[in-house]
């Protein structure tokens, strides 16, 4: 993968909070080794991450200059059932909680209204999370697991070292599937792993304009497409999420270009699934979005409170946009049966 380095290879955390009883954990040591050299000076030992994280409302945009890292143990439920309309088919979907928050700054991101802090929390009690995944997988054959419900699955994997652990687990769980959802091009490690049919790398893709103006700090579209191509060539299973689809005065042209660019770079007949999702917000996230990004181009769209109280474009517009994209994708050889609407 020449030239395709993670866009935030050196993550600069302001403070690194570590739960005292994890200081000697091998994963903690590994993470500290992978952070910039002076990171140990930034370490604050704490009893529990939730004595600090979430105790105060830390403004979301503080992630730009004042981002902290928490190395912690996840308590409570480690695996949760995903909401309806989450994936393709009738299998059950679950997500496991390996971290909170993301280094990227997508203007529509629901994390801005979900947690009261943008700080990154990485949960390193993998053995407990793993046990729970095995239990759920055995009770729900052919179910799906998603990493990255509250974070990007790959963006920090070169620091957390999670990817090889996930891979090893799902190698032994062929009756369950794992989706690693990302906007990152941090695939160096993935390319060294043996492809597994049940481990799917899925990429969220937006128009070139969107990647530049809205998906702040994320890799540009062409880099994401190159990363997908490399994974495909290595034999990995890949899924695509054209999500969120955002209206602009030139939305049809921009999305036509996007699909053209995708088809030029990727073998669309080899895509495992492709989801379409039009931009949507819960009311509280919409409020935060308006506050954080008053000048965003997303405001050009017509937002209304929808059937489920989420803020969306009117159904007529959503359906029109999705139908257009479906048509364009099928023209490029994507099978209709692998396309599904997300959260509609």
């Amino acid at each position, binding site marked *: 993968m020449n030239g395709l380095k993670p866009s935030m290879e050196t993550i600069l955390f302001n*403070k690194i*909070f570590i739960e005292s009883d994890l200081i000697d954990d091998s994963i903690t040591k590994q993470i500290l080794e992978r952070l910039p050299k002076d990171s140990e000076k930034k370490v*604050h030992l*704490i009893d529990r991450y939730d*004595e*600090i994280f979430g*105790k*105060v*409302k*830390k*403004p979301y945009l*503080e992630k730009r200059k*004042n981002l902290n890292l928490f190395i912690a143990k996840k308590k409570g439920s480690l695996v949760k059932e995903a909401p309806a309309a989450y994936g393709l088919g009738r299998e059950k979907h679950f997500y496991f909680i390996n971290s909170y928050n993301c280094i990227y700054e997508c203007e529509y991101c629901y994390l801005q209204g979900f947690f*009261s802090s943008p700080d990154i929390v990485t949960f390193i009690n993998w053995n407990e999370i793993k046990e729970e995944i095995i239990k759920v997988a055995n009770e729900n054959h052919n179910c799906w697991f998603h990493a990255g419900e509250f974070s990007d699955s790959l963006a920090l994997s070169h620091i957390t070292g999670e990817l090889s652990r996930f891979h090893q687990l799902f190698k032994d769980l062929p009756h369950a599937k794992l989706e690693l959802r990302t906007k990152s091009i941090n695939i160096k490690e993935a390319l060294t792993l043996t492809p597994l049919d049940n481990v799917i790398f899925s990429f969220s893709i937006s128009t070139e304009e969107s990647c530049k103006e809205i998906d702040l700090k994320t890799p540009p579209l062409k880099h994401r497409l190159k990363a997908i191509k490399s994974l495909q060539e290595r034999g990995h299973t890949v899924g695509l999420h054209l999500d969120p689809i955002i209206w602009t005065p030139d939305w049809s042209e921009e999305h036509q270009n996007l699909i053209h660019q995708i088809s030029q770079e990727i073998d669309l007949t080899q895509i495992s699934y492709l989801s379409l999702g039009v931009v949507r917000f819960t009311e509280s996230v919409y409020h935060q979005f308006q506050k954080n990004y008053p000048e965003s181009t997303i*405001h*050009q769209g*017509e937002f*209304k*409170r*929808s*059937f489920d109280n989420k803020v969306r*474009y*009117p*159904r*007529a*517009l*959503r*359906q*029109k*946009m999705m*139908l257009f994209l479906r048509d364009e994708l099928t023209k490029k050889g994507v099978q209709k049966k692998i396309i599904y609407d997300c959260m509609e």
Partner: protein
Amino acid sequence: MILLTFAHRLEAKAFLSYFKDLKAHPVYKNLYISEKDQLALLLSGEGILSSATSLSSACTLLPNLKKVINLGVAGALNPSFKVGDILIGKIAYASKSSESKNMQFKSFPLEELLNEFSSYDIVSAEERVLNTSEKKYLSHFGDLVDREIWGLAYSANQFNIPISSIKIISDSKDDEEFCQTVKDSALKFSNDLLSFFLEYISVKEINVKKSEITDFEKYFSSHPNIFLTTAQKNLLRKFSKKIKLTDQLISETEEIINRHIEKRPKDISKHVFDFFEKLYSPTIYHLNQVARESIFSLNSPQIKFSPDPIFESPEISFSGKLKNEKHKDEIISKIKCLKIDEWSETINGDHLV
């Protein structure tokens, strides 16, 4: 007008001497006002409660208040700060009780004051003297500790007035004789804050800060042929977030106005707002029009049809009154006229341009 706030008179001493026109308010003695300088000064007292209540009182007495700047001493929670450093506040946090590791959830972003300086988070502490473990806990949230900024920011937020903070470090992280040091050096700290203030802050510039009203809003709210109700004024503000004032918009709107120039300004504004509604929300405008033509037009005293009000479901509900056979026939014929499939297509975006 700008309001400068200090916890104690000693911290404000240099300012009170420098701004000679500051006169004590006739009733509220801790508030000083200089009409000439468009400046006021408040001695807020120490602690979150005192600072919040005194700023609230000042805000009600100063109707033209544009900005609050808090100045004063703060303790360092960040070991890299030295006594005498002057720092700009970024976010105000507060402890409920640092001993029991209890924080106020709410925080208040402070308005950026000077781009050339870094800014830092401030925690307002509940207690005056902190032990090492309390300082350590607060250092997880902020770089400085004071006694009032959170309370001041709370009040300023209630009045929607921007607030900034300039702090001078009075004790380092490991200092234990906190109060004594402050008292001894208070005048020096006050002089240093004044020098900093005079060098970097322009009271005049803050007072003439540009208004946030858009050109679109300005143009149409003062148009001689349009009369706006209060609800329409609010709508205009909503529209102004998306519709920009361009030559084309002006010419299209003027054409609408001229077409209806014989009507009352109130009625003209209805036509203009209909046009804005179409620009602001074209899909909903289109759906409303189709609903008017193909659904509401069938309404009669016997039957009333109503589509889903948020246009999410293609279902059409109806209610009616039956008194005789004739009504029954009328209702049946109206229902037969309803083109449900066409409406369903419309809801699914089929006829959207």
